[in-house]
C-alpha cells in the first residue's frame, strides 16, 4: 500500500471515528459537567474533561470535523478564485493580466497573520461563535488565493503557447470557449494547490485560535484547545490536555502526506 493511500485511509478512519463520537446519543461539545472538571479518562469520558467539565473526546472530535470542513471549504473557494483570476490574467487582455498580477503582489506583500488579526479583531463584539468560525475561514480563503493564482497563471501561460492551443485559436475558437477548454487542462496545477491549502488553513486556524483570535467559544477548535496548554495547573492534573495537540499533528501529517503525493 503506498503512502498516499495509507494516509487517506487513516484520515477517513479518523473522520468517521470523530463523526461517531460527536453523533452518539448524549454527546455535546458544550455540555458542562461541573462535578467532573479536569476528570481523568473514564468510561463516561474516554479522554477526560476540560476545566469546565466538558467531554474532551467530543470536543476534539468536533474540532477535527469543523476544522477539516472549514479548511476544505476555504480551499475550494481559494482554488476557484485562483483558477478564475489566473485564467483571466493569462487569456484576457495584457493590461488585465498585468493588473491581476499586481493585485496578487499586493496580497502576497501583506503578511497573512497580521491581516487575519486585523479582520478578526474588527469583528462585531456580539458576533456568534458560528459567525466567527465562518469569518475565520472566509478570511483565510480571501487571503490564500494569490499564491495559487500565480501558479495557475504560469500554467495557463504555458498552455496558451502550446501547439494545440495555437491551432485552436487559429481555427477561430472564441475566448470563452478557450477558457472552457483550458480549465480541465489546468487540473494538474489546481489539484496540488487545493491539497496544499488544506493543511495550511488548518495550521493558520490553530495559530489564530491559540492567540485567542480564532473561533469563539463554546465552539471547539484546535486553537482554543491549544490555549489549555497555557494553564500549567491543568497540566499537572491530567496528561490528556496533550491529546488535542497530538491528534492535530497526526491529522496535519496525514494531510501533508496526501498533498505531497498528489
Amino acid at each position: 500500500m503506498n503512502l498516499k493511500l495509507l494516509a487517506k485511509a487513516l484520515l477517513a478512519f479518523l473522520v468517521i471515528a470523530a463523526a461517531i463520537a460527536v453523533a452518539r446519543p448524549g454527546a455535546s461539545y458544550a455540555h458542562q459537567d461541573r462535578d467532573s472538571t479536569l476528570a481523568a479518562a473514564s468510561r463516561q469520558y474516554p479522554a477526560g474533561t476540560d476545566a469546565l467539565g466538558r467531554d474532551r473526546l467530543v470536543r476534539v472530535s468536533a474540532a477535527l470535523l469543523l476544522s477539516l470542513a472549514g479548511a476544505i471549504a476555504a480551499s475550494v473557494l481559494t482554488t476557484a478564485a485562483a483558477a478564475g483570476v489566473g485564467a483571466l490574467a493569462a487569456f484576457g487582455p495584457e493590461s488585465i493580466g498585468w493588473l491581476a498580477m499586481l493585485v496578487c503582489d499586493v496580497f502576497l506583500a501583506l503578511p497573512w497573520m497580521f491581516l487575519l488579526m486585523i479582520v478578526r479583531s474588527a469583528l462585531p463584539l456580539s458576533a456568534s461563535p458560528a459567525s466567527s468560525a465562518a469569518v475565520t475561514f472566509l478570511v483565510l480563503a480571501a487571503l490564500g488565493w494569490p499564491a495559487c493564482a500565480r501558479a495557475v497563471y504560469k500554467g495557463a501561460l504555458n498552455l496558451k503557447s502550446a501547439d494545440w492551443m495555437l491551432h485552436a485559436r487559429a481555427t477561430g475558437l472564441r475566448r470563452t470557449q478557450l477558457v472552457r477548454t483550458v480549465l480541465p487542462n489546468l487540473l494538474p496545477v489546481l489539484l496540488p494547490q487545493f491539497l496544499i491549502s488544506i493543511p495550511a488553513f488548518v495550521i493558520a486556524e490553530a495559530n489564530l485560535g491559540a492567540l485567542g483570535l480564532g473561533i469563539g467559544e463554546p465552539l471547539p477548535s484546535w486553537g482554543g484547545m491549544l490555549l489549555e496548554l497555557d494553564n500549567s495547573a491543568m497540566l499537572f492534573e491530567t496528561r490528556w490536555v496533550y491529546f488535542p495537540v497530538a491528534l492535530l499533528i497526526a491529522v496535519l501529517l496525514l494531510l501533508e502526506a496526501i498533498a505531497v503525493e498528489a
Partner: protein
Amino acid sequence: MKHALAVARWLARTTAIVLLVIVGSTVLVRFAPGYLSDAREMDAHYGDTVRAELSAEAARSGSLPHLLSLELRGWLRGDGGVSRQYGVPVSDLILPRLAVTGGLMLRSLILAWALALCASLISSATRKPSMLWQAPAALLLAVPTAAMATLCLLAGYGGPVLVMALLLAARDFKFLHHTLRKAWLDPHLLQARAQGVRTHRLILGYILPSIGPQLSVLASLSIVTALSALVPVEVIFNMPGLGQLAWNAALNRDLPVLLSATIIMALAVTLAGMASDRPGEWRSA
C-alpha cells in the same frame, strides 16, 4: 541606460505596491464587519442615548477618505497616527520594539539557514533520500508554531530563537534538499566526482554559485515565513516585539497600531521579495 530603466521600473513598482498595501489595509479595516462597533457600547453604565451617540460618532469618523487621510497624514508626519489604546503616537510604541523583533528575526534566520544548509548538503549528497532527514522536517512542518512554542515553554527547553529557527529550517530544508539533489545529478558534477574532485571544492566552486538565484528567492521566502511566525512566538514567550504589540492591539481593537505594524511588515516583505528577484533582472538588462 537599460540598467537605469530597470532600476527605475523596480522602484516604481515597489512604491506602487507599498501605496496599494496602505490603501488595501485601510479599506480592509474600514469594511471589516465590526469596525464601527465600540467596546463602550457593551458597557451597562452607558444609557441608550450615549450608545446612540457613540455609534453616530464612529460612523462620522469612519468614512474611508477620512481614515485614509488620517493614516497618510500620520505617516507623512512620521508618527503613524495616534494609538487608540494608549493615546500616544504609534511610532513611540513601534520604534523601541523594532530592535527586539529585528534581533529575533536575524538570529533565527542565521541559525535556520545554518541548520538547513548543513542538513540538506549531507542529505542530498547521499545516494538515496534518507528518512533520517526527511522525517524530522515533515514532523516540524506539521506542528503549528503556537503549539511548538507552548511545548518548548512547558518543557523549559529552547527559546523563541530555537522555535523560529526550527520552523524556518524545516521549510528551507525541504526546498534546499530538492534543489541540491538536482544539482548533484548534473552530468558535469557526476564526472567531477568520478574524477575525484573533493566534495567541499564542488560545493563551494560549483553547486552554491549555480543555485544562487534559488537561494536568494528562498531567503526572501524565509523572511515572509519568519514574519508570520513572529506573532505566536513573541506572544507565547512574552517578548516585547512588534508581533506582541500587534496582537495586543488586535485584542484591544487598537486599529491605528495594528495597521502601522501591518504596513511595516508588508514593507519588509515587499523589499525582501523585490531584493531577491531584481538583481538577476538588472544583470540581464
